[in-house]
């Protein structure tokens, strides 16, 4: 009992230390809330501003001499302006900021004063009504000329979404493969898997925010180094987790459900520890935050997405080959198939499980850092996609290695393409609904075997 306690406590301490190491630099980067505009509160006023440009030309040209009027709730004119040579206008609202807060103002454009041949994109919208909710100046727009981003055809849109979906599914597949391998060999339904994903993203962030850049031959490779370091730290984290926590629990014969609940506790613990260290803000890495996208045919894709996809694909192929060809890979699959049989045929099950934890955590961590590269991250980036990871694994078939990847691909692309018909905010809902439907008709998953009873 005491040794077990010691091992668990040691594990938790090491976790803390690791996290501190990874995030030592990030703790100081809390951005303070933007200070309230004090001048505004001290009696300054708010203006309604805007800029009129004609998008028929490229680049768009300013539209000058247009009359803009602002009316208050009762319809009284409270201010007016004429757009200047840059097309801008600004109308100061009467009274102090504190007086206009909460009031509603209507801004009207006088179409008569538009230059000859210039029309509003939406000729019926000559008025815009806004409630003043903050102490900031308000901006209004009256678009003139055609939409510079004309609506694209559904086919192109689907293709664009498919590309995004493939990039996402590659990352999802790495995370799912890790979960599936660990489940397959140990039976653990690991609710703390999301925190392995976040760990990768945070570890890279910790390295990335260390002072100074890492350069090789004059090129700034800070992020590349950070990704590599995150991969190694994640692997170490996985090994520590298994040795410090899961193996002792397995050794004392802890039930799978009890372990599942332990993993829930671990998830809550780590997630809040991450927030403690990294704050609640969304972060981006120092490089490649806002790159210019390339257009390939009608598709837009950023170079970093291509690089991320290639890395992920290579890793997935590599892991698959390793599982298929190497002795250790075969042993892993044997243990996943039947641990007792594997043990009796001379396979060192504990060692295989150690390797699976190292590999699974490294995969999860790598998916986390690459996810962070493509779309930024926060302290719960992994927790947010945890259910999708579960869904992918169950969809493909619990514990099957190919199933996890197949499930991730189906789900990842489905999520993106479904936004053609489903509002984007509900895209995860669609994916989870698919999961439930699959359970209904094929509970063993797409590649799983029907279970043998007795």
């Amino acid at each position: 009992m005491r040794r077990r306690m010691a091992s668990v406590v040691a594990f938790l301490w090491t976790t803390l230390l690791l996290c501190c190491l990874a995030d030592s630099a990030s703790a100081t980067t809390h951005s303070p809330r933007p200070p309230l505009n004090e001048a505004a509160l001290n009696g300054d006023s708010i203006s309604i501003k805007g800029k009129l440009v004609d998008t028929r030309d490229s680049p768009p040209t300013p539209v000058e001499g247009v009359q803009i009027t602002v009316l208050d709730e009762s319809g009284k004119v409270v201010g007016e302006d004429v757009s200047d040579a840059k097309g801008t206008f600004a109308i100061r609202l009467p009274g102090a900021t504190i007086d206009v807060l909460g009031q509603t103002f209507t801004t009207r454009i006088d179409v008569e004063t538009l230059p000859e041949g210039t029309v509003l994109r939406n000729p019926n919208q000559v008025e815009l009504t806004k409630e003043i909710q903050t102490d900031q100046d308000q901006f209004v727009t009256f678009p003139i000329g055609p939409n510079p981003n004309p609506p694209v055809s559904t086919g192109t849109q689907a293709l664009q979404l498919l590309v995004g979906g493939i990039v996402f599914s590659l990352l999802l597949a790495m995370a799912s493969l890790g979960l599936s391998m660990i489940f397959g060999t140990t039976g653990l339904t690991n609710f703390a898997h999301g925190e392995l994903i976040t760990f990768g993203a945070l570890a890279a962030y910790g390295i990335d925010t260390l002072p100074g850049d890492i350069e090789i031959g004059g090129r700034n490779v800070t992020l590349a180094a950070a990704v590599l370091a995150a991969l190694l730290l994640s692997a170490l984290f996985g090994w520590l987790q298994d040795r410090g926590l899961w193996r002792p629990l397995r050794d004392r014969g802890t039930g799978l459900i009890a372990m599942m609940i332990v993993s829930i506790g671990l998830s809550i613990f780590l997630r809040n520890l991450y927030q403690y260290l990294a704050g609640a803000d969304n972060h981006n890495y120092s490089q490649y935050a806002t790159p210019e996208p390339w257009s390939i045919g009608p598709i837009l894709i950023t170079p970093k997405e291509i690089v991320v996809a290639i890395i992920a694909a290579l890793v997935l192929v590599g892991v698959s080959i390793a599982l298929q060809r190497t002795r250790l890979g075969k042993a892993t699959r044997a243990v996943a198939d039947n641990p007792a049989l594997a043990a009796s045929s001379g396979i060192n099950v504990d060692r295989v499980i150690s390797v699976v934890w190292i590999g699974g955590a490294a995969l999860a961590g790598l998916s986390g850092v690459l996810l962070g590269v493509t779309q930024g991250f926060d302290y719960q980036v992994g927790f947010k996609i945890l259910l999708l990871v579960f869904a992918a694994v169950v969809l493909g078939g619990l514990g099957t290695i190919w199933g996890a990847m197949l499930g991730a691909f189906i789900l990842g692309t489905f999520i993106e393409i479904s936004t053609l018909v489903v509002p984007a905010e509900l895209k995860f809902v669609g994916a989870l609904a698919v999961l439930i439907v699959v359970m209904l008709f094929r509970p063993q998953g797409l590649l799983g075997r029907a279970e043998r009873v007795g």
Partner: protein
Amino acid sequence: MVADRIETRDVDPPLRDDQSEAARASLSGVPHEPGAPKPDPIVVADNIVRKFGGLTAVDVEHLEIQRNVITALIGPNGAGKTTFFNLLTGFDKPDEGRWSFEGHNLNGMSAYRVARLGMVRTFQLTKVLSRLSVMENMRLGATGQSGENLWQAMFAPFWRSQEKANSSRAVALLERFSLEPKKDDFAGSLSGGQRKLLEMARALMVEPALVMLDEPMAGVNPALKQSLLGHVKSLREDGMTVLFVEHDMDMVRDISDWVIVMAQGRIIAEGPPEAVMSDPKVIDAYLGAHHDAELDLDESQSGDRNG
């Protein structure tokens, strides 16, 4: 929602010893061949096939089980005995085939309804309910309890008298199986042999017509074995039919009236114990290619029991 409708079932009045004698005697005219028809079958199965992936685990053309006798189901590991048990009792679904129990067609019937008809099984790895007391394990076996209905459960007057009757029946059975002193212990604290006894006693609480025992002797210490044998025999005396899977050939020889041999999913031989154990086909099945070895079926029990 009503979970447990009380199903009325005709329980045969306990037969006297001579009646089970008569049932045994009637087996003497049955030919010693697979699928032989019996004078008074309680279970009849036809063309039961169960495949796992490409592997055919069970493929039984025809089988009849005689009422009121003890029938043993033997065979080498992996012969499909336990799978066949699962299929008959509704714990697994065959790919094809039909079978009946006392004239009731059991196709597609779920396990709990099969049990309610009076066909009750035990498990190879005992399934006692560890964190319930021995008495609670026993009481759970009783059928037709009105207190098991959600709406009546909350009001004890609806079920108190029935509970009392069940309890006294349970105590009587526990006394018979020498478990009475343990009745308030958690079932999880019993020894392996005691668990086997409890499981058998609990099955009797259902008042079955057919008791199916999956390896009742596995893991039981020698001292308990003799009393277990006696208990199984006494089931027959009480008018029940017994079908059991067993590796322990002493037990098979001692108590079974009829033996069915399975190998590779098929029934390869049937007959009284002595006849079956000298059947060359059976010897082949147990020993495979090793014809030179002399058959001593007593040794076969030393094999491991994954089948």
